[in-house]
């Protein structure tokens, strides 16, 4: 090898090395930030973690003890109902967008507006549902909260479900059609089955997102100081309580807020891990 060539190779390797170092540093940066945030939540949250957190309702100000049972249950109820609603509408809409009318002007328009909605601040969903549900019904309710969360989740579900459906190779559809299956059966039994883990991943990401949303709940489910299963009544939401308690003056509130943050983060982590396990099965 002549020296200049070796120099060039060295230079290329060096430059490549620098790039790779940057890449590693970027990852370290992201992971460190996560660690820093989690460290803050865990160290502050763990000390306030106890059984009462899950069995007792939010305490009045300055009263020791109490828990977050009303808020945790309320959040699960509203998130659950919201995601079921968003999944039902979103997945079927995505099926039409990708399978029935791909590339059509209407489908393109729907996907464009979907992207627009994805960027909207979530408080808008609350304001909208307040206008169309709460005002006409005349009272706040858990169902209204669930509807607002569904509005936040819907664009996420539509866009992730579309992406998952598009990953299904066309050859699979052709094979099914060649066997004589009508389009609707191909879609339901072949395409949806092939893309279900991708769709489920999207659903779980959407769930994780709305589980942490406080703004859409403020003027829909209002919040409740007491424990209730009744979705026709105002229902407490965990992120809302978390915000209220974290910014309140009292020490027991601060502790509950950090414990709530820990619970909330753990739930989201759990959902993401499930999503990953599901998509691993798919790999």
């Amino acid at each position, binding site marked *: 090898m002549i020296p200049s060539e070796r120099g060039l190779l060295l230079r290329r390797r060096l430059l490549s090395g620098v790039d790779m170092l940057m890449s590693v540093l970027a990852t370290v940066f992201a992971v460190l930030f996560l660690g820093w945030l989690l460290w803050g939540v865990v160290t502050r949250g763990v000390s306030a973690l106890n059984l009462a957190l899950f069995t007792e309702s*939010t*305490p*009045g*100000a*300055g*009263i020791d003890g109490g828990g977050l049972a009303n808020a945790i249950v309320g959040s699960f*109820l509203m998130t*659950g*109902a919201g995601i*079921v609603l968003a999944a039902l509408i979103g997945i079927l809409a995505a099926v039409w967008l990708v399978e029935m009318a791909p590339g059509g002007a209407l489908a393109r328009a729907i996907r464009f507006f979907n992207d627009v909605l994805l960027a909207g601040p979530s408080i808008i969903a609350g304001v909208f549902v307040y206008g169309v549900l*709460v*005002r006409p019904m*005349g*009272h*706040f309710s858990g169902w209204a909260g669930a509807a607002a969360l569904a509005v936040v989740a819907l664009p996420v579900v539509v866009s992730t479900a579309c992406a998952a459906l598009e990953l299904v190779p066309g050859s699979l559809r052709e094979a099914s059609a060649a066997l004589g299956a009508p389009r609707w059966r191909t879609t339901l039994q072949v395409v949806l089955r092939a893309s*279900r*883990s991708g769709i*489920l991943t999207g659903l779980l990401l959407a769930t994780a997102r709305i589980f942490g949303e406080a703004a859409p709940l*403020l*003027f829909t489910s*209002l*919040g*409740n*100081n*007491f424990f*209730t*299963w*009744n*979705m*026709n*009544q*105002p229902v407490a939401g965990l992120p809302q309580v978390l915000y*209220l308690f*974290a*910014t*309140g*003056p*009292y*020490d027991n509130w601060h502790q509950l807020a950090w414990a709530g943050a820990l619970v909330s983060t753990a739930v989201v982590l759990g959902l993401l891990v*499930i999503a990953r*396990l*599901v998509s691993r*099965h798919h790999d």
Partner: protein
Amino acid sequence: MTFNRCARRVAGIGLATVFALGAFDLALAGESHQIDGAGSSFAYPLYSAWAQPYAKQTDVKLNYQSVGSGAGQRQLAAGTVDFGASDAPWTPDVQMKEHIMQWPTAVGGVIPTIHLPGVKPGELVLSGPVLADIFMGKIAYWDDAAITGLNKGLKLPHKKIVTVHRSDGSGTTWIFTNYLSKVSPAWKEKLGFDKAVAWPGGVGGKGNEGVAAYVGRLDYSIGYNEYAYVLQNHMNYARMVNKAGKVVAPTAESFAAAAGNADWKGADRFDVVITDQPGEATWPISGATFVAVHVQPGEHAGRIRDVLKFFDWGFKQGGEAANRLDYVPMPKSVIEFIETEWHKQIKDAKGQALWPAS
């Protein structure tokens, strides 16, 4: 079992649970004994602290949520809640037009909070006009003659003053700017008073917590906070010169003096703002918090009776809880007057008084 099948089963169970709960929920809807109120975030700790023992004693659950005073007023007008709560009083016009009645429930105060190294809590003394000039930027340094004149013997540094205000609309800002408008003509003309004003400068923190965080962190800063915040967070604060020219410290007694010296009975529909009240012991930046209900609730009369019973209980049994949370209960004479007004103004579906004469 594959993971997918398992996941599907989990999803199925989740779905079934949600629907089962929905059905359960309809079954329960009839027997709910809950009344709902919303509004002032300042009043949230107090009403939520009253609601718990009250629910144990009476089986009536009073659910109060802090959505902000402005939203509280709008929700009452929209009829989505049984009562609204606000730190700024409903004007007599609005009360007439919307057929509502308001009354004060408790008194609190707004305190100038400072971060001034070397100065102990309560050492610094400020007056209304000086406070207005500081927040308008006219007084820019801590050793301005206007400040040192009030603080002979206190060594103040030649440092720029950083002002901190609430970024969100709030009753606290309403009370604070209302006071500044009363004591400073320039403030009244340029800025006026509201839940949010066009601050000429400084930093905005979200909520009491945000203001407390910035004042705590920024050297040579000044902000304003609710009394409970100042006490619970051991913040450094300033004393004030009141209308009578006396220097007063923010205490439960000086807030009570402000409430006691206000003319509740002479006012039109409790439209009283208790900033800058007379009296030697009066804390000048005091404020009451208000609650309002519809006076002709019709079919909802039973719920409104529950609201009145709750506040009656709070007035009579909730004083200790109020004190513990650093609120000042209403004076006894004012409570009697409020309940007489309940009797006079609020009617049930048949047009009878909802509240018995005392």
